[in-house]
């Protein structure tokens, strides 16, 4: 490296090697602790996000095994009711709020900027802030659990059970504040994704050339923005009821307990699609690559994703069919819940057509897609069944529903996610995961999952309700429960093997090269792992499959400055380049802001004055964050 560059040096002025050098210098994350907490590189933050989310998956899985141990025989006394209620609440809350939503957003934080061909995510400091907030929320929840203060009111925390009169101690407050943390983090990421997708796409990537995973994430991000305020309103008003004696949910003072359920499920149902839609994008991506042909029905798939995202907001009442709502309202929600099967059907038919028209290669990611088809469609079918009000009154809150949503969430989301990890692992780490071990992982997860969860359908139909810490021997549920518990071990072994394979391959896997699968999208146009600046030159896109369309290489745009972090801002529909935009540099202030915010949120569980005094450090941190420093990025 020689000398500092003059101001306003463009990439055209430098030879390729020198350019790479200079870009690496400008975009680098310095080593050491300050570098670690100050980085705004979307890839590093996504690493953390993904790793943390998988840690929470493992923790949530251990809780599931504890429950299965307790339920393996009738009238077992291994775990008492108080601990058991904490365990199933923690399992649900961990899996939904600390694993499923964050891991999907984390995959997007890593992949979306690469797939749309830009150098960093929009609002990178917000991105860093979001991770620390998420981590703090997770630590709060698990630290509380460790000292026997874990929430024990279910992941849905229905009032009045979670209200001031029945929810003892600070347990429900911790649940509600954990929600605030994770939703804050999720909202931040959603905003970043929307702006990245709409304004930072590579020149030429018009709306009809956006990769399907990116489309899915865009719809998901909008769903997050639409759904999460409802739960934040709900959890905040619950805390107010508990802390300062408001009566939002107290019927004897004019409040209403069903209001909670409406608010919760107005968020809770879209939440399912917030977890599922990214998986849809992953399935489309994997199928396209391994069928070796363009996806069949691109437009239909995009429209299905959008209509799923919209319909998701019109279904929430189907979680409340047993509350005794007026029949007309229930009928409407039956129809809308049934209707969401249609866009999902469209997607499945398009994928089948893609496979039928292509020449499918059954590598490990494809095996997970096949497992997805098998299980998710069963979940979809039982979904149609529970959408029917009369049938739902029989199976609601029983193990039938437990089976149903695990088929949808694990079959529909976790299988594609594990497939996606096998698929993108070489991009993220530069090394392949083992094809041999991967087949075992797929087999164990598939067999373990179905053996564990299919019998639960029957358990529900013969009367076993959810959330019971034990059951009488006289009801003959013991045999099936024992079978389920033993199968859960197989499922757990599958996950264990997956973790082992991932950790081992990180160091010892075969070197991948930039595009080991022969995939068509832009993330494969840069080395694996990608350099800090993602692309030395911003690619220019002429079609939906840039790496397949032009075998000679991807066209690039030039003229960006290399003496500061710079990327291209493009128009929303056509992705015509509009401006060179500076991208923020590393900063430790998001970290301090997250700490200050966490202190306020946790303190406010105990005293309303936290909001007053705690706002001071937040103010200071925000001033530090936004203080103009006359650095190049401020001059744009």
């Amino acid at each position, binding site marked *: 490296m020689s000398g500092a560059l003059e101001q306003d040096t463009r990439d055209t002025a430098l030879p390729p090697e020198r350019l790479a050098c200079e870009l690496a210098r400008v975009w680098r994350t310095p080593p050491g602790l300050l570098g670690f907490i100050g980085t705004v590189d979307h890839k590093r933050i996504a690493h953390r996000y993904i790793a943390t989310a998988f840690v929470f998956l493992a923790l949530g899985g251990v809780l599931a095994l504890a429950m299965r141990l307790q339920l393996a025989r009738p009238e077992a006394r291994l775990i008492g009711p108080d601990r058991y*209620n904490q365990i199933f609440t923690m399992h649900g809350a961990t899996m939904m709020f600390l694993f499923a939503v964050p891991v999907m957003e984390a995959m997007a934080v890593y992949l979306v900027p690469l797939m749309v061909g830009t150098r960093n995510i929009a609002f990178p400091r917000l991105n860093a802030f979001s991770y620390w907030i998420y981590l703090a929320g997770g630590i709060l929840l698990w630290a509380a659990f460790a000292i026997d203060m874990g929430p024990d009111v279910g992941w849905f925390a229905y009032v009045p059970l979670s209200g001031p009169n029945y929810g003892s101690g600070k347990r429900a407050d911790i649940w509600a504040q954990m929600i605030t943390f994770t939703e804050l983090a999720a909202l931040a990421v959603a905003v970043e994704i929307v702006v990245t997708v709409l304004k930072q796409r590579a020149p030429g990537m018009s709306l009809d050339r956006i990769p399907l995973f990116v489309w899915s994430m865009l719809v998901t991000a909008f769903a997050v923005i639409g759904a999460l305020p409802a739960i934040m309103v709900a959890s905040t008003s619950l805390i107010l009821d508990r802390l300062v004696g408001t009566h939002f949910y107290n019927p004897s003072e004019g409040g209403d307990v069903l209001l909670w359920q409406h608010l919760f499920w107005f968020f809770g149902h879209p939440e399912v699609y917030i977890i599922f839609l990214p998986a849809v994008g992953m399935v489309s991506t994997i199928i396209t690559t391994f069928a070796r042909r363009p996806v069949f029905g691109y437009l239909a798939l995009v429209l299905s994703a959008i209509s799923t995202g919209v319909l998701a907001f019109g279904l929430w009442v189907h979680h409340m069919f047993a509350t005794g709502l007026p029949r007309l309202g229930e009928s409407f929600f039956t129809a809308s819940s049934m209707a969401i099967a249609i866009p999902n059907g469209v997607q499945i038919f398009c994928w*089948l057509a893609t496979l039928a028209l292509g020449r499918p290669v059954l590598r490990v990611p494809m095996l997970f897609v096949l497992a997805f088809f098998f299980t998710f*469609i069963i979940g979809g079918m039982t979904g149609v069944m529970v959408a029917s009000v009369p*049938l739902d009154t*029989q199976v609601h809150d029983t193990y039938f529903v437990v089976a149903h949503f695990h088929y949808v969430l694990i079959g529909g989301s976790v299988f594609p996610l594990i497939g996606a990890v096998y698929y993108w692992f070489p991009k993220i780490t530069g090394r392949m995961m083992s094809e041999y071990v991967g087949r075992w992982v797929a087999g164990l997860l598939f067999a373990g999952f179905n053996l564990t969860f299919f019998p639960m359908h029957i358990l529900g139909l013969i009367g076993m309700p959810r959330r019971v810490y034990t*059951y009488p021997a*006289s009801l003959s549920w013991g045999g099936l429960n024992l079978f389920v518990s033993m199968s859960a071990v197989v499922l757990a072994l599958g996950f264990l093997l997956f973790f082992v394979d991932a950790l081992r391959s990180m160091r010892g896997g075969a070197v991948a090269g930039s595009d080991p699968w022969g995939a068509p999208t832009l993330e494969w146009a840069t080395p694996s792992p990608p350099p800090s600046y993602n692309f030395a030159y911003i690619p220019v896109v002429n079609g939906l499959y840039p790496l397949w369309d032009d075998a000679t290489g991807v066209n690039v745009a030039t003229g960006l400055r290399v003496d500061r972090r710079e990327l291209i801002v493009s128009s929303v529909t056509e992705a015509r380049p509009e401006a060179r935009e500076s991208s923020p540099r590393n900063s430790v202030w998001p970290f301090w802001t997250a700490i200050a915010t966490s202190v306020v949120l946790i303190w406010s569980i105990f005293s309303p004055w936290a909001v007053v005094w705690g706002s001071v450090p937040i103010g200071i941190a925000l001033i530090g964050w936004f203080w103009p420093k006359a650095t190049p990025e401020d001059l744009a």
Partner: protein
Amino acid sequence: MSSARHRFPYAIVTPLLLAACSGAQSAFTPGSPQSQALRSLFWLMTIVCGVIWLLVMLSLILAIWRRGPAALAGSPQERRATMVVGTCVMATVAVIAALTVVSYAATRRMAEAGAEEPLTIRVRASQWWWEVEYPDTIASHGFITANEIHVPVGRPVRVELEAADVIHSFWVPGIAGKLDTIPGRTNTLTFTARHIGVYRGQCAEFCGLQHAHMALLLVVQDPRGFARWEDVQRTQAVTPSDTEQMRGREVLVSRQCAACHTVRGTMASGRLGPDLTHIGGRAFLAAGLLPVTRGSLAAWVADPQTLKPGNNMPLVPLSPDDLRAVSAYLAALR
């Protein structure tokens, strides 16, 4: 399950209890037109969905099995695929619409009430037991019991559901789908039992520590048996027949028991816990936890917190003699 576990006072019911045991809480053993309709709806949907699932799996296997070059965009194969996908989508819409209509029809069929005047029962759910009230226009004919509902076969029943504390859900799968009990509201469930028998039910909405132990029995009797049962329930508690029972009543009235429990005909008139006037005649105590025997009553009074941790009945320290006396008295309250 042995018959000894169900010491039921009515000779006629005992064999039925045994018969009902295998599926006592199952959606597959319907005892009313309502739950019968639900079972038919379940099988219809399962078969339709199962067939669709099989067809999709079959096409998936065919799609993967197919060998040959990839079909390019605009090729005849792709045009044919468009037709096939379009047809499948149309078929999906048709099936979904049909299932929706079938579901509506089931709701409607289940709501059809008989012309007969229904029997009204008020059920008030508490943490973690059920108060059951049979109101009557003549106040002295109404009575309150707990965790056990008796209904005559063939007569429409109207259950008014209320909650004393948190949300619970009333669910007897053999008779009807579940309906929540919600603080501040009254929900109404109607059904007509068609088969004599005993149906077990359980709270289906998570309601705290002892959600797992909040069961109830629904006993469907012939009208004469039901009338006899009603007559017994209307009476006040029996007078103790020996000195031990006498002492038991004395202990019950003078110690903390009376603050929460009612025994009609004595000074005990608390409303926080279940009415004990005819506890000795019920099949189970503590909401399905234990069959009522003198021994289990003694065990329960001696240490309710070990048997049902977290429940609202405190341990009342009693001398062994007092404990014996109380259990003898309770067992005699038929």
